């Protein structure tokens, strides 16, 4: 019953909101180029289905490739940091600069370097820059947050650095890394969108470009359809990563204990 409610409640709420939206738009005669009702958005979605799906696929690819590179690079650098304080002291400030400089201000530069004929490459780089930091900082924190008692135990049995990393630090850092991945998954999508917005034209073909294009033509229904798909990508990424987190942690980690019962 409780489990059913968990899924039923948000669905019922969603239907109610959509119905209210449709009702208000009709009741107050809101023009379709300001706020279309759900009944106007659906035809825009079906009419542009194939181009929207192509764009969805482009955006997914950009997001996932950038995320994957950010994950590997962030983890690798975090492992280097965990092994060497010197490396961390030298490199961390630059990682921070990369993070705090607003990506939207850097994006034009990256587009110029990569070239407007390769917007998707620029998008991958931009998404990678924003997705990289949360993984790096969370993984570094996790690798350092080792139970000192366990570290003593490993030392007592003469464990090598590699054994300590593989058997102690990495598994212990897993909850931190997964939390970083959930943040990065969302940021990678933002990066992909920023790149296309900044490009504004050229060879951009992702969902963000569909939004810009529809806005320029005042096709607000189509814009909503593309926006909906963007949310969909974000939701899929988030829940996929939440599921991964559950898979890896539910047997042992405190966060998966439900104490509200």
């Amino acid at each position, binding site marked *: 019953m409780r489990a059913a409610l968990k899924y039923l409640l948000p669905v019922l709420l969603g239907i109610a909101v959509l119905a209210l939206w449709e009702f208000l738009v009709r009741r107050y005669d809101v023009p379709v180029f300001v706020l279309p009702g759900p009944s106007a958005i659906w035809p825009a979605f079906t009419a542009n289905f194939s181009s929207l799906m192509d764009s969805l696929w482009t955006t997914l690819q950009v997001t996932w490739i950038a995320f994957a590179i950010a994950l590997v690079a962030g983890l690798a650098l975090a492992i280097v940091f965990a092994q060497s304080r010197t490396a961390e002291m030298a490199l961390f400030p630059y990682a921070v600069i990369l993070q705090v400089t607003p990506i939207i201000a850097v994006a034009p530069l990256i587009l110029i370097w990569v070239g407007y004929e390769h917007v998707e490459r620029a998008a991958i780089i931009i998404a990678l820059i924003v997705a990289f930091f949360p993984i790096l900082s969370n993984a570094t924190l996790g690798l350092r947050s080792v*139970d000192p008692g*366990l570290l*003593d135990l490993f030392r*007592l049995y*003469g*464990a090598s650095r590699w054994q300590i990393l593989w*058997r102690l630090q990495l598994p212990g850092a897993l909850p931190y890394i997964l939390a970083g991945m959930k943040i990065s998954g969302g940021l990678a999508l933002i990066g992909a969108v920023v790149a296309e917005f900044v490009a504004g034209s050229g060879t951009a073909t992702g969902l963000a470009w569909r939004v810009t294009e529809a806005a320029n033509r005042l096709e607000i229904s189509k814009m909503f359809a593309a926006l909906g798909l963007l949310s969909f990508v974000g939701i899929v990424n988030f829940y996929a990563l939440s599921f991964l987190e559950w898979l890896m942690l539910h047997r*042992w980690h*405190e966060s998966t204990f439900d104490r509200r019962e």
Partner: protein
Amino acid sequence: MTILLSLSGISKTFDNGVEAIARLDLDVAEREFVSLVGPSGCGKSTALRIAAGLARPSAGTVSFPNGRPETGFVFQEPALMPWRTALANVRLPLELRGIARKDAEARSRTALERAGLKGFEDAYPRELSGGMKMRTSIARAMAAGPKLLLMDEPFAALDELSRQALNDDLLTLAREDQMTVLFVTHSVFESTYLSSRVVVMTPRPGRVTAEIRLSPPPLRDVSYRLTQEFADGARRVSQALRGAMGKGA
């Protein structure tokens, strides 16, 4: 009497200038059960860590006249890896030693069973009670078949009943495996019950101020706690401890 472990002239001053131990001398013979007692902060845990090689003394030497024995260490906290089952936790020392998986598995199972946790092989630490976690920790220390067992207030966080049960099980394991035990505690009764010798340390900087030799029956149970002999032992330890407090600062 063969000396297994010898601490001589051990001093330890930490980087922040705190002098934890000053000229500590202690010999532990084979198959002895020695308790180190003293007020908190007297450096008894530090002495134990130095004996284990986990900390370096500022002066003095740690020696093992007959070679360094296989050593097990039980910490104040169970220090279990939460992502591993009880069995996999116990297996860790054997893994680190590069012992083949199958062999390590079998030895871990035996160790866990001997520590009283048969049937809990696949339980994760969060599913175990405080006493069971400590049993897992003891099983892990036993897995590699140590000749020397170093224990740092292992039962301090447990309730009285679990503590007494673990005291008895520890004595059984130590007897069966002919282990030498160096046991840090601040409990008068625990040290009296377990030990053949109680070594009393002064407050910081810690050094040995008194030794009480006890001769408890090799096989003892809860009834021993009610004997006159036990009460006398406890009184001697208690007096020595009070005497040690007087020598502080």
